[in-house]
């Protein structure tokens, strides 16, 4: 058996770990920069929008029950489209991981390890991630499924503990920077749901094809809940002018949350959980990189490429020269490129492939499950 089978919960954890990592870093800032005090309204709005979108994706995948987006691209446009999509997405993933890794390492270096060389921290993360990927996909998926609930719990506790210092008037003025910014240009905040991109790749690995719907809907719901919690608690606690300038808003929250007089500043424990979540996310990401690589090149043992990709990520992590560059990469480049991938590439490919499929099989609108090896010509 070549494939590892993913269950519902494992699939949801695969997608949700992405949002946890971004919440800890710069996601709240990007959203409040664009919307002001109407960020919660905006987040609810885009969650609803994304929910509809995921339902659409699930419906479109019904005709391609055992194929991922690369196979669909091949079906649509031949090998050229498959390679184009695969290579560009791999480059995007390498860029994302390197920026995230560099951002988090900068935070660690500033706060806890001023005398440790930056390259050392980055290499440490990468060594661990490579080692874990040599164990195989199953291990990565299982490790992720254990760690994601722990991270969810720690984030939940964080947001719960600041509940005391909420002042609900901070959500006013209700429209923030204006109707247009909240609802029209605010749609660009859909990049927060970037994890849905991974949904396009997990189809062949699912144990039950019916799980796909559960995974899609479950992950969107969980992502929305955590986004609302994160942005809500940040907005209601600080005047938002303040925390858009902060290194990591969630770190500020933990510094402010009162745990009583005895336990002072347990931020280090929360940072421990964030390190675990970053390790988990990077391992999952590297796993997907290897999956794409195998799909494109058909090598027998793709695990051997893990150190190569890790080296690429390491090299890419040195591209930003400082925090200003990192912020620019995260808030502008990452935001718009993930929107382009989700809306400009994946969904159109799905739509066009469905149209092509309907033209070829006008009577058979929905194919049956089929076994794992059925290829659509």
């Amino acid at each position, binding site marked *: 058996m070549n494939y590892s089978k993913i*269950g519902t*919960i*494992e699939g949801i954890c695969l997608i949700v770990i992405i949002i946890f990592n971004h919440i800890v870093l710069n996601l709240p800032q990007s959203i409040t920069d664009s919307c002001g005090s109407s960020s919660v309204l905006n987040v609810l709005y885009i969650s609803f929008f994304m929910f509809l979108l995921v339902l659409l994706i699930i419906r479109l995948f019904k005709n391609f029950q055992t194929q991922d987006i690369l196979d669909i691209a091949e079906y649509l446009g031949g090998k050229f489209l498959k390679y184009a999509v695969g290579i560009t997405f791999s480059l995007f993933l390498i860029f994302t991981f390197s920026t995230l890794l560099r951002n988090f390492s900068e935070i*660690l270096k500033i706060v*806890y*390890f001023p005398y*440790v060389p930056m390259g050392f*921290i980055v290499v*440490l*993360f990468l060594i*661990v991630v490579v*080692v*874990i990927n040599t*164990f*195989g996909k199953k*291990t990565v998926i*299982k*490790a992720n*499924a*254990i*760690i994601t609930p722990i991270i969810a719990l720690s984030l939940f506790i964080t947001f719960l503990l600041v509940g005391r210092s909420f002042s609900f008037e901070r959500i006013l003025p209700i429209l923030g920077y204006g109707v247009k910014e909240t609802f029209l240009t605010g749609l660009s905040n859909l990049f927060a749901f970037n994890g849905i991109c991974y949904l396009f790749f997990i189809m062949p690995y699912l144990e039950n094809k019916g799980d796909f719907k559960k995974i899609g809907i479950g992950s969107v719901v969980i992502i929305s809940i955590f986004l609302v919690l994160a942005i809500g608690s940040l907005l209601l606690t600080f005047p938002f002018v303040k925390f858009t300038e902060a290194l990591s808003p969630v770190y500020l929250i933990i510094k402010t949350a009162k745990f009583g007089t*005895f*336990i*002072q*500043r*347990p*931020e*280090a*424990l929360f*940072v*421990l959980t964030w*390190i*675990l979540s970053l*390790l*988990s996310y990077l391992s999952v990401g590297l796993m997907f990189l290897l999956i794409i690589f195998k799909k494109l090149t058909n090598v027998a043992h793709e695990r051997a490429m893990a150190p190569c990709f890790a080296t690429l990520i390491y090299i890419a992590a040195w591209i930003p020269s400082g925090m200003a560059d990192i912020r620019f990469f995260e808030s502008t480049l990452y935001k718009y490129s993930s929107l382009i991938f989700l809306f400009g590439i994946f969904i159109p490919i799905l739509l066009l492939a469905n149209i092509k499929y309907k033209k070829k099989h006008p009577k058979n609108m929905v194919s049956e499950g089929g076994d794992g090896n059925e290829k659509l010509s």
Partner: protein
Amino acid sequence: MIATERPDRSSNSLLEGRVVVIVNGSPYALIMPGVFIDFMFSPEDRNLKHQFANFAKFLRILAFIITLLLPGFYIAITNFHQEAIPTELLFAIVASRAAVPFPIIFELIVMELSFELIREASIRVPSPIGPTMGIVGALVLGQAAVDASIVSPILIIIVAITGICSFAIPDFSLSFHCRIMRFIYTIMGYLIGFLGIAIVLFLHLTILLTMKSFGVPYMQPYLPLKSFNNKGLFNPPAWNREYRASFLHAKRPRRQENISIPWKTGNKHGKEKTL
């Protein structure tokens, strides 16, 4: 594999659907497959009420975590994350360390090694002086070391708690594993604080996840999360032990009827009715 000397544990495992190997001349019976949670299991748990058994299991898991992580956390916090300690405790630690000439890592390693040496020695000491040796070694030597300002009192507490918790783990080989991994956590905590501990924790978890015991993944039943048929963290009450573990693929997966201990009630006319 679980190695046990108790016949009741082996016979219960047979009834669960495991395989037991008995060798002539050896007091141990080998039970397979053995998953992680089985090593936290004590045979008395089956006969106690489920509340008490679950409490004891919770204590053992807590002991496992403390044995593994406490020295590493102590050294990571005192070297890198001093702000996490409450102020008065911090001043107490600093004051008690004022006369100690060695760095914390050196003290910790020395005390841990001496604790292990005392433990090894006490196995082979003749029985009349065995308990005395334990008391002399642990208490008096520790106290004398504090008075001579070789180690600080807080470290003695840390080492003692770690040692006690390692005794609380039921299985001998698992406690050995903890004692060895503890050193790795300590060293990585000393070198890079919480980052090191997180990395080793992640690696440790992953290695546990890759292991298989005779075809059964070691971290069953937590992962893969397939069936929740009361094989998880908590022991179910005696009337709820209906299914055998699904990872054992037993021929008869059900071992009790739906209601195994029925109530007997009387109706108005005095006739007995069984539910």
